[in-house]
């Protein structure tokens, strides 16, 4: 044994290192647990540095943009963006409330329910996973964040919290291939499962039978079945629908990533909202009464406006016809009353003119 270990020392160490890591991996997969200590060390070493770099970068960036390029516009833009995000959230909430019931009932529901309680967070970096769509945010357990909480933007869902540290958390984005969420369609109330495709902006709806009806352009909202996202949050719009073997192939454009992903909201206390109804196509439209018919006989004749001097050939020709009409007493538009042949007098007029000799 000693001979073997000394003879194949390198190989023995390699096998031992691989086996140790395989055991570590098997333990995590089997127990669905985590080796938290190693992660805490690594996150503790990297995220403070990332935050320092981010602070430095944003500081330098803000300095140049604030003082040399935009002066006070940046602050105003930031304030307006925040205000717009808030208004969009309010709007979304009110729209979903109002579209399901009559106004009075919706107002009552609105009064009874307060919107979801959220915590704002800033994305500080990506994780190191190969092909994974996971990001770090600058809020952790100190801010009341817990694993499994939903992460949204004012435009729609963005992801869910997977791991939480004291000052940072890991968020699995909706675009990750392992992400899944329960969804429901707007028009036909078809339930399905949203899954990420691994690239930005798109996703797929699974587990929708071929017999069920889903239209192109239809919206999908969270159904609340997954117990992560509150019901009624927009997910995306259907771009393509195909019949599959047994289930439909449905692809959606995500709404949560429209304006990039810099800042997100973590839902600390979620509030379910109803799915808004489909827009009514035969909606009654208020039309004004038509204007009264002008019956007065002495209505003034509107003459075409002559603005500026005669300039082009067309203007000159038109002027000649106008003079011709005045001479013959013809009113244009009443040809049946013996209007002249306009070409003849014009030619005659031209023939009367003596050409200039060079």
């Amino acid at each position, binding site marked *: 044994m000693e001979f073997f270990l000394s003879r194949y020392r390198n190989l023995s*160490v390699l096998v031992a290192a691989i086996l140790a890591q395989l055991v570590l*991996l098997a333990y995590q997969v089997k127990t669905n647990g985590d080796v938290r200590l190693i992660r805490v060390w690594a996150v503790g070493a990297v995220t403070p540095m990332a935050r320092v770099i981010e602070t430095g970068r944003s500081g330098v960036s803000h300095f140049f943009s604030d003082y040399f390029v935009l002066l006070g516009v940046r602050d105003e833009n930031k304030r307006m963006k925040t205000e717009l995000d808030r208004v969009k959230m309010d709007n979304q909430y009110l729209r979903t409330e109002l579209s399901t019931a009559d106004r009075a009932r919706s107002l009552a529901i609105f009064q009874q329910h307060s919107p979801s309680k959220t915590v704002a967070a800033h994305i500080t970096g*990506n994780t190191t996973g190969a092909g994974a769509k996971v990001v770090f945010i600058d809020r952790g357990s100190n801010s009341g964040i817990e694993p499994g909480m939903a992460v949204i933007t004012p435009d729609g869902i963005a992801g869910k919290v997977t791991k939480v540290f004291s000052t940072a958390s890991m968020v699995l984005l909706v675009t990750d291939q392992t992400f899944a969420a329960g969804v429901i369609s707007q028009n036909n109330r078809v339930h399905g499962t949203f899954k990420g495709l691994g690239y930005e902006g798109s996703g797929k709806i699974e587990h929708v039978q071929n017999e069920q009806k889903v239209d192109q352009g239809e919206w999908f909202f969270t159904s609340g079945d997954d117990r992560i996202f509150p019901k009624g949050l927009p997910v995306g719009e259907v771009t393509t629908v195909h019949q599959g073997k047994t289930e439909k192939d449905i692809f959606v454009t995500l709404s949560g990533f429209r304006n990039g992903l810099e800042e997100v909201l973590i839902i600390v206390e979620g509030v379910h909202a109803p799915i808004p109804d489909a827009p009514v196509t035969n909606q009654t439209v208020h039309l004004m009464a038509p204007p009264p018919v002008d019956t007065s006989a002495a209505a003034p004749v509107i003459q075409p406006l002559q603005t500026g001097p005669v300039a082009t050939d067309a203007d000159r020709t038109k002027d000649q016809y106008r003079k011709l009409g005045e001479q013959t007493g013809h009113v244009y538009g009443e040809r049946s009353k013996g209007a002249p042949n306009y070409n003849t007098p014009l030619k005659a007029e031209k023939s009367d003119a003596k050409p200039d000799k060079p």
Partner: protein
Amino acid sequence: MTGFSEGYREPLRKERNSMFNVAVIAGISLLAILFRVYVSRFIPYLQYLELPLLVTVYFSLMWRSPIAGLFFGAAIGLAQDSLSHQPLGMFGIVKTLVGYFAASMSLRVDVGNPVLRLFLGFVFFFFHQLLYWVLANALLGETLAFELPQALVVAMLNAIVAVFLYQLLDRLKVTG
């Protein structure tokens, strides 16, 4: 004959082994991981640049010690695992093997040759991606797609970066 052989080989090994300051090794490793975490966020194309792997290959090639290479690879890999949402050990196993094979390779070839560095960078990146894909499918049951043309192109890009990066890192060797 034996005495001559030992007397000949030992100084050569010592001469060929490269030494680095511990702070330099730790700093470069941390920077490589930080680059993966932070910089790729602002320049998405740079997420294809696998700096932790390139650094693992470099130090393993320079040290010429398979044991040192595999432990360094394991450390970098586990740190990378810690910052991902995957279970710990995926990158650890892959980079352990990369470190071991790179160091074993360095015992037989001249690791200072840029063309060879290009080749090794390409081969080890491709090996890394392929092995990770196999492990993710086999051990975690994930259905990740492996796109061969993309993997080859990215491997070549990483190899080109490796040539310049290694020349830069050569300047950090401890001399004397």
